[in-house]
């Protein structure tokens, strides 16, 4: 798991590390050692690969999107279809892997934080499949706007806790999950859903999501006979983007991450951590975050609950500083336009998170030139967002609460 590009294990340049209370350090050591041993164990890898193939539904297709390519200024666009996986988003890749690890460590209980609810649903799913007790922490505001996913989690047998503290969103859910973990560390595994948190999570989650880029690389070499010119993915915590980027980091492939500009960077109501944030420590690692001069964390804002987080994975911070990846930001309004564009041009209703990546395509195509080959991480499907989208477009759905 050591990272050749960045030296010390768990560090990405000056970012990453382990900023946690003493109680959790041995649990993080155990997780690090267990993951290293598991990935070197052919039986573990075979079981993981089998589940990814026959439970999750991998490999996911790489769909040529010719209409979309024309609409965004002339590009050959390939969509990496994580929306077609079991539970409807890339989050399940990581959850299956961590569930196997938790079982290997003898844990009997899984906890998770969730924003949009996709990671919570994926955690509840693997908990049901492998027989773990499961509790998911979700900010009270997200419980409201993602009611469908709350219902799915409960149907799967998970307990969903609505977190009323702080800004009542993803960061507060993560604080509450950390409090649970420090209290129940003996029997509980904290299944972090993004490439954030203390070491080893940023590396662990990236390695479990790296299957996205690995497949895309093979698929594009098989169908196009060459590597893409660029990869594009949305970035909240950054797991789907890291999963796609990882296989291409050492190649001559441009990498674009797309953050949520919310109501606009200038309004202060956004979640564009890399674009407009500063360096700090939150939730166990050093990275960029949204904070004030006194070090207080500022609330994030995005129409997409999955991007509504004031932090970002430390490897993205390093990719940004080193210039290896570029990070753009698109507004709520632009994301809605992106969602409609993909729906009408390709017949694919994507998640609001994913719609940010679509919305950035015209700018990216105009920057790198037309006629280029671009892989877009289609991280999730949009069913969960229909009430939010309808409300934003001024449509009242039957039975919808306003």
């Amino acid at each position, binding site marked *: 798991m050591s990272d050749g590009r960045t030296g010390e294990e768990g560090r990405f340049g000056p970012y990453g590390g382990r900023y946690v209370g003493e*109680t959790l350090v041995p649990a993080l050591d155990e997780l690090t050692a267990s993951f290293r041993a598991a990935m070197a164990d052919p039986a573990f890898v075979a079981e993981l690969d089998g589940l990814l193939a026959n439970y999750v539904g991998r490999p996911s297709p790489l769909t040529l999107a010719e209409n979309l390519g024309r609409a965004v200024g002339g590009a050959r666009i390939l969509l990496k279809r994580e929306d077609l996986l079991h539970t409807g988003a890339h989050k399940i890749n990581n959850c299956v892997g961590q569930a196997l690890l938790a079982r290997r460590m003898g844990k009997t209980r899984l906890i998770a934080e969730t924003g949009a609810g996709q990671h919570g649903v994926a955690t509840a799913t693997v908990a049901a499949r492998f027989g773990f007790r499961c509790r998911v922490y979700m900010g009270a505001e997200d419980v409201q706007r993602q009611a469908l996913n709350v219902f799915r989690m409960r149907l799967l047998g998970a307990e969903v806790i609505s977190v009323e503290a702080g800004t009542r969103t993803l960061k507060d859910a993560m604080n509450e999950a950390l409090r649970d973990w420090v209290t129940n560390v003996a029997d509980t595994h904290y299944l972090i859903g993004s490439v954030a948190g203390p070491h080893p999570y940023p590396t662990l989650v990236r390695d479990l999501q790296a299957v996205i880029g690995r497949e895309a690389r093979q698929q594009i070499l098989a169908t196009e006979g060459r590597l893409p010119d660029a990869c594009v993915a949305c970035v909240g915590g950054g797991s789907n983007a890291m999963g796609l980027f990882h296989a291409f980091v050492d190649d001559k492939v441009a990498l674009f991450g797309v953050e949520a500009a919310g109501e606009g960077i200038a309004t202060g109501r956004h979640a564009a951590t890399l674009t407009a944030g500063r360096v700090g420590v939150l939730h166990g690692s050093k990275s960029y975050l949204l904070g004030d001069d006194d070090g207080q964390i500022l609330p994030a804002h995005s129409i997409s609950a999955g991007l509504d987080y004031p932090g970002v994975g430390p490897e993205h911070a390093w990719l940004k500083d080193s210039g290896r990846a570029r990070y753009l930001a698109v507004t709520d309004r632009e994301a809605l336009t992106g969602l409609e564009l993909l729906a009408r041009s390709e017949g694919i209703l994507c998640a609001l998170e994913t719609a940010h990546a679509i919305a950035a395509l015209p700018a990216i195509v105009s920057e790198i030139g037309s006629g280029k080959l671009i892989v877009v991480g289609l991280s999730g499907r949009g069913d969960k967002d229909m009430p939010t989208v309808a409300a934003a477009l001024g449509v009242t759905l039957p039975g919808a609460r306003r």
Partner: protein
Amino acid sequence: MTGGPTRIARRFAALQQRGEKGLIVYLTCGDPSLAESAALVIEAAAAGADVIELGVPWSDPSSDGPVIQRAMERALVAGGTLRRTLEVVAEVRRWSEVPIVLFGYYNPILALGPERAAEAAARAGVDGLLTVDLALEEAEELDGPLRARGLDRIPLLAPTTTPERAARHAARGSGFAYYVSLTGVTGAGHLDAAAVGDRVRALRPALGSLPLAVGFGVKDAASARAVGANADAVVVGSALVQAIHDAQGAESRLHAVRSLVSTLKSALTDGTT
């Protein structure tokens, strides 16, 4: 180190000489207001607190239980920050030489910069810092600036800490070691003094001459006495924060501090005679 032993070291030396257990109390700075905080600290010191842990308000206190979380929220509304906390310390220093440890999280320190934060803390009259989310492996970036100004960095030990790791903490930290008596957040209720005693005795040899304080779950005279039997000092946090919150009006808050601190101190003093 600049100059001689720190206020914390001198206090523990005096306690040892008298054969007495120390009482360390925690208050969140700015709860309920910044204007009252200095008076509450001075009152706690006058009533017998040997060391004050002054909580620095932060937006995301993920190691704290509900009582201190609420206190942090009130303190933030009152305008509490690291800089304001240092102003309170400077005010206390006009009246009291009680040892003061800033208790909090790393991001406010990082936002100011470790060098500037250490400089400002030393100038205000702070004696040490206890930064709950700065693990031993990351402490380097703060250790240098603190050491250069003679400030202690108080290490945290937990039930999951091995004696080998405790020895590494003791080698790097100073002032005293704070043993967290249970796996959990601040203010949790299920203290098992006998089990704590076993763990503390196991870790003790690894600490050399570093004094050992035990906290988390200590809330009254009985639990203070039970925990104190195996420690150099006892830490009381959430119970005091709750008492301050429950009292109505500035006068009764001072009274609540005086009453709880003196009760705890006499329980510890009686327990050793």
